[in-house]
């Protein structure tokens, strides 16, 4: 099996679907000849031609309108928002137009759009590049929100997203793009959207998380292991809709849980996970479900990321708190 970085797996997924379906088109700012600012579309224009992989004018709202229009005329658009902090410029197209197309037409029209975008802290970008806005997206009815944490998941989930007949926001954590390689089959495969994955089995405490925090949580689990605490790490992979069954099964097994997110604490994905656990598994709990999250400030200045972003030590500490409750 090939060893790939996450960005290579993402490119591979797009190449697979460009080959599979002539209606797949890939576009965004700098995605053509330049291959994208992170090289996610490297080589795709020369392989599939400018008609299918192309640059857009520098206007995110226009990119959203283009995607919706192409979706209505039989295409399967894969649009890139160069950095997810720019999503505010295209918010109407994503949450008010594409997300509502099927509903507004009583099921007649749809928006089979994949919205790919890099996000996530730890790479010291200028402001409004790295913001964790998945909670904002998860609150919008009509879209699915996917966040892979490994190259293997990245490929399978992106192929599923492109094949989905409803809009999928597919968020790529910048810190994971090239930080490690993983096994990725060269053939095509899909991973079901809405399915979490237990990345590490454990029996004492569940760490429910997603994105780059999966890796911090795995590191925390190793530390906890040294102290005799067996942590289970659940990677949500899709933050909307949530895989309730996997979350609840893990919590029922361990009786203790923390939810870890890189995003600010208020009204986030973690809050929803806690609420679902309360709704469905409160009698299995030996301790309150706690959250590890960033403070409710604006996403920090680049040089303040180190102190602002949650890290594995925060996770170890919270896990111990619920373990010793």
């Amino acid at each position, binding site marked *: 099996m090939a060893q790939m970085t996450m960005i290579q797996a993402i490119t591979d997924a797009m190449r697979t679907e460009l080959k599979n379906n002539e209606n797949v*088109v890939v576009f965004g700012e700098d995605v053509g000849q330049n291959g994208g600012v992170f090289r996610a579309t490297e080589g795709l224009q020369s392989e599939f031609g400018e*008609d299918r992989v192309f640059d*857009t*004018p520098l*206007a995110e*709202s*226009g990119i*959203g*309108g*283009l*995607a*919706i*229009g*192409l*979706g*209505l*005329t*039989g*295409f399967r658009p894969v649009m890139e928002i160069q950095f997810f902090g720019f999503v505010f410029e295209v918010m*109407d*197209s994503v949450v*008010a*137009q594409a997300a509502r197309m*099927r*509903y*507004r*037409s*009583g*099921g*007649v*029209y*749809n928006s089979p759009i994949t919205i790919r975008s890099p996000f996530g802290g730890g790479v010291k970008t200028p402001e409004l590049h790295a913001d964790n806005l998945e909670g904002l997206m998860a609150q919008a*009815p*009509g879209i*699915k929100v996917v966040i892979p944490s490994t190259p293997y998941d990245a490929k399978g989930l992106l192929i599923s997203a492109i094949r*989905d*007949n*409803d809009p999928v926001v597919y968020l790529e954590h910048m810190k994971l793009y090239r930080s490690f390689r993983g096994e990725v089959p060269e053939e095509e495969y899909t991973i079901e959207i*809405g399915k979490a994955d237990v990345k590490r089995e454990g029996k004492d405490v569940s760490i429910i998380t997603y994105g780059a925090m999966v890796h911090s949580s795995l590191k925390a689990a190793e530390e906890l292991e040294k102290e005799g605490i067996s942590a289970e790490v659940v990677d949500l992979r899709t933050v909307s*809709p*949530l*895989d*309730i*069954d996997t979350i609840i099964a893990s919590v029922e097994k361990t009786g203790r849980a923390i939810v870890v997110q890189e995003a600010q604490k208020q009204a986030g994905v973690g809050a929803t996970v806690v609420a679902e656990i309360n709704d469905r598994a409160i009698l299995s709990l030996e301790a309150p479900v706690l959250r590890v999250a960033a403070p409710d400030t604006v996403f920090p200045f680049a040089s303040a990321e180190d102190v602002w972003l949650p890290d594995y030590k925060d996770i170890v500490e919270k896990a111990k708190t619920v373990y010793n409750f």
Partner: protein
Amino acid sequence: MSLIEQVEKQFETFQILSEDGKVVNESAMPELSDEELQELMTRMVYTRIWDQRAISLNRQGRLGFYAPVAGQEASMLGSQYALDKEDWILPGYRDIPQIVFHGLPLYQAFLYSRGHFSGGQIPEGVNVLMPQIIIGAQIIQAAGVGVGLKKKGKKNVAITYTGDGGASQGDFYEGLNFAGAYNAQTIFVVQNNRFAISVPVEKQSAAKTIAQKAVAAGIEGIQVDGMDVLAVYSAVKQARERALNGDGPTLIETLTYRYGPHTMAGDDPTRYRTEDLDSEWTKKDPLVRFRTFLEGKGLWSEEQENKVIDQAKEDIKAAIKKADGAPKQKVTDLIGFMFEELPHNLKEQLEEYKAKESK
């Protein structure tokens, strides 16, 4: 002469029929048969009656959301008449007549007004979108549809409508620019009815015409007398041919006027318009002008007009009756429209509401 004066000089209003129904631009006369000319008049009369009935139904609480159209018939119907059946229409919220004449059944338009989901269930083969509420969103989407039609090699265009206020939105500029950059098969119509709710067009922009905004996008632009159905028809027909010849998109500004309020939800035009201005524009009325023209050719009579009026009233009555028979909406219907395949949260909620609704 300053640059801007030179640009604005290029945007003289295109007109074929003068206010008193005389042909003032013989060479621009579109090739329309007598029957087609009569059909244009029929549609305008029909729509005027429909507008009157809709206002009255709204006042009786039997319609819901309604944005009056009287005054804009030439602009709306002349432009739609220039389209091919397979062309796409991306309407704003006032542009219901165009989508009805493009194939949306009238009772569905009424159900849209009432806020019923079946109003948006566009029949198969009718290439129109649901009326857009967000001002300008349809403009970028029309650029996208125009790109899609071109990529698919279709001999069709996308036409979209907004108002003078819509031309102030960022999406207006992005849509024009995208369509130009991709040479999209798109026609942008700005129905300049002089007021965006209450704000006069003079306060929207320093530009003397909206049509001239095409220049910056590198596309064709034309200002048309929007009370002259032949001029509107002809401008759209030419824009359509240009798009299909690969010569790019066109921005068309139609100068028109809405006689009524912005919508029937409490807008009072006397707060922002004078009677003088109203009467200045009613003198340009599109129906009066075209009627005079047709009567001069012996193509229209009071008898014909009455026949159209009776037909419109009968159709509206039947459509309202049909709309009244629409099923009461259920939450389970609405949940079903969210995704092709329901995710488990909605599946769970579907069961919850099924139980509730069966009580």
